[in-house]
């Protein structure tokens, strides 16, 4: 097809590739606004498939393991309440992560904020042991939110005034928070009658969140549901929420419109940290009834995936918090057949992977090269 003359003068049409081959290119789909609904379930399914390979490598039948996990998490009334108990901190931290991500701030420090919240709430029980329940609980809530909020600000201030990537800062602060908690439970606050158990003495009646009936569910559930409703309403119907959405959609336009982005980042991280701190308070006061070593099985990290799966949507947050709460409980329940509970962390990571990959499907289209 090529003649010497065409080679001398640049052809107007793109030169035809010799010997047509099946080749494809990916390009931005001008009409691609969103993803079809089935992308999310498919991502989860693929993640389970991948993890199934690792389970099989461990000599187990993946189907049996998954069935056992689902059964452990949702198969009995005990399992369901346990799942909801785990969903409480996930939901609170998840709202925090989501609200920060609204303006593209990555709060991966929810774990640390959760822990300092738990420490601060416990401080109330140590410093003011004799207060009645109407004094203690509100004080614990205030302390925990303040501590978590300050921890969040420690991430936000370097980001706004020193251009420091918040990912690194918030993660470093997680390790600082873990060490801080370890210091208290191995050191000054250790239960003298606890046979060297790294934990504080058990809280008294006035320091524990009231339980729902005789289940392990506690008032923290109400905190979490209240927070998620408030989050939905504030983001959707207030000027503040509108500004958040505007910054998220187009930071440059928001800046030109005179929206104080720095102030928004500070406030959002204060709220985000405060919510995680509240989750920490709910956990010590509602579930463990003491501060102890290793109190969080990584709620703060799971919350990132909760927020991502929910696509920051309030109702979605509730659903995904319950789902991942079930995953944590399911992880515990397969320990009885000799699998480590870290299986749930592995599945969580895999789900996030496939969600990201799946999330790109709607943005691009595959076209055959002509």
């Amino acid at each position, binding site marked *: 097809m090529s003649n010497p003359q065409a080679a001398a003068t640049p052809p107007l049409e793109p030169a035809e590739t010799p010997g047509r081959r099946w080749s494809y290119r990916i390009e931005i789909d001008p009409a691609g606004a969103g993803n079809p609904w089935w992308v999310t379930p498919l991502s989860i399914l693929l993640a389970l498939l991948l993890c199934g390979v690792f389970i099989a490598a461990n000599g187990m039948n993946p189907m049996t393991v998954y069935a056992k996990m689902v059964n452990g998490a949702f198969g009995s009334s005990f399992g369901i309440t346990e799942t909801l108990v785990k969903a409480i901190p996930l939901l609170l931290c998840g709202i925090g992560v989501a609200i920060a991500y609204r303006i593209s701030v990555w709060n991966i420090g929810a774990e640390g904020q959760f822990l300092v919240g738990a420490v601060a709430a416990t401080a109330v029980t140590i410093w003011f042991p004799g207060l009645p329940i109407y004094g203690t609980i509100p004080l614990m809530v205030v302390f925990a939110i303040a501590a978590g909020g300050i921890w969040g600000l420690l991430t936000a201030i370097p980001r706004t005034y020193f251009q420091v990537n918040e990912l690194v800062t918030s993660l470093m602060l997680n390790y600082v928070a873990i060490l801080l908690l370890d210091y208290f439970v191995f050191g000054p606050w250790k239960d003298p009658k606890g046979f060297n158990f790294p934990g504080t003495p058990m809280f008294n009646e006035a320091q524990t969140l009231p339980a729902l009936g005789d289940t392990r569910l506690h008032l923290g559930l109400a905190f979490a549901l209240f927070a998620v409703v408030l989050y939905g309403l504030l983001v959707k119907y207030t000027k503040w929420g509108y500004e958040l959405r505007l910054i998220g959609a187009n930071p440059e336009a928001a800046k030109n419109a005179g929206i104080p982005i720095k102030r928004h980042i500070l406030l959002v991280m204060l709220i985000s940290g405060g919510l995680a701190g509240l989750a920490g308070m709910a956990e010590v006061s509602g579930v463990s009834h003491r501060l102890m070593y290793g109190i969080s099985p990584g709620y703060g*990290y799971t919350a990132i995936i909760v927020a991502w799966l929910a696509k920051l949507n309030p109702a979605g947050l509730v659903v995904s918090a319950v789902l991942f709460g079930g995953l944590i409980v399911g992880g515990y329940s397969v320990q009885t057949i000799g699998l480590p509970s*870290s*299986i749930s962390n592995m599945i*969580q*990571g895999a789900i*996030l992977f496939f969600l990201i990959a799946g999330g790109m499907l709607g943005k691009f289209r595959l076209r055959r090269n002509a």
Partner: protein
Amino acid sequence: MDTFTQIVIAAISSGTPLLFAALGGILIERSGIIQLGAEGIMLLGAVISCMTFIQTGSLPLALLAVAGISIALGLVHAFMTVTLRANQTVSGLAMTLFGTGLSAYLGKSVAGTPVPGSVPKLDLDFLDGVPFLGDVFGHLNVLTWFSFALVVVLHLFIHRTSWGLHLRAIGDNPATADVMGIRVQTFRYGYVIAGTILIGLAGADMLLAYSPTWTEGMTAGRGWIAVALIIFARWNPIRALLCAYFFGAMDTIGFKIQLIGSEIPSYFLKMIPYIVTILVLMYLGWRSRNKLSGTPQSLGLPYIREQRF
């Protein structure tokens, strides 16, 4: 041996994993891809090297296995960020979360079992009499010497070869590089995989040379410190060496303070590296507030040939 020499030795030993990870990160980020999965890759590198070493008793096989898993992880990250153009931050974050979970899952069987051997040391006997150098360089292991060599090689590669020029070009301005005829996507794949191997090696070095027993989450944030190191080092291998040893020293200085009988609880001393990381980042941010920080200019931006910026 005086205290200073001891600190230098300890700094090199705990700084070497950081150095490997930072060098890998530099290679990846120079090509314009953000890599935040270092923590997860290091953990997987550590656990795989531990398992292979215990199973086969062969160190080279352990290192090969680490290279294998790193290539797989690098391919995944490159596929996500280069081909699918997914958000590079989230892809790295997912790799960290997945790596943490998978390493804990795989490592359960070998947790607490020490590896059956150590990395061979290069004994330079002629240095034995020399006061400072003999103590520091006389008996380093081969992985540490490899890291020294790597610093020099990477420095020369990035700044003195045409391949290095291409690497910098695809990180700064992929569209121009593409017009020049450099295969941006192919090179990005290559550099992401090569860098991931180095990060995996960092985990292996951490386990084989620094603390020879697998414990869950044993890297304790070092992958993230390595991410910060890349920024401190302004994407330069030689500065990465200095910064890595500085952080290695921060890691050990806590022990030293404890040894001289200080009243400060060890928990607070262990916070030093994390807090120093934040403070140094803040100082750098403050100093370079109106200047270029050496960041590859297209870092984090997917390159789409058909799209005009």
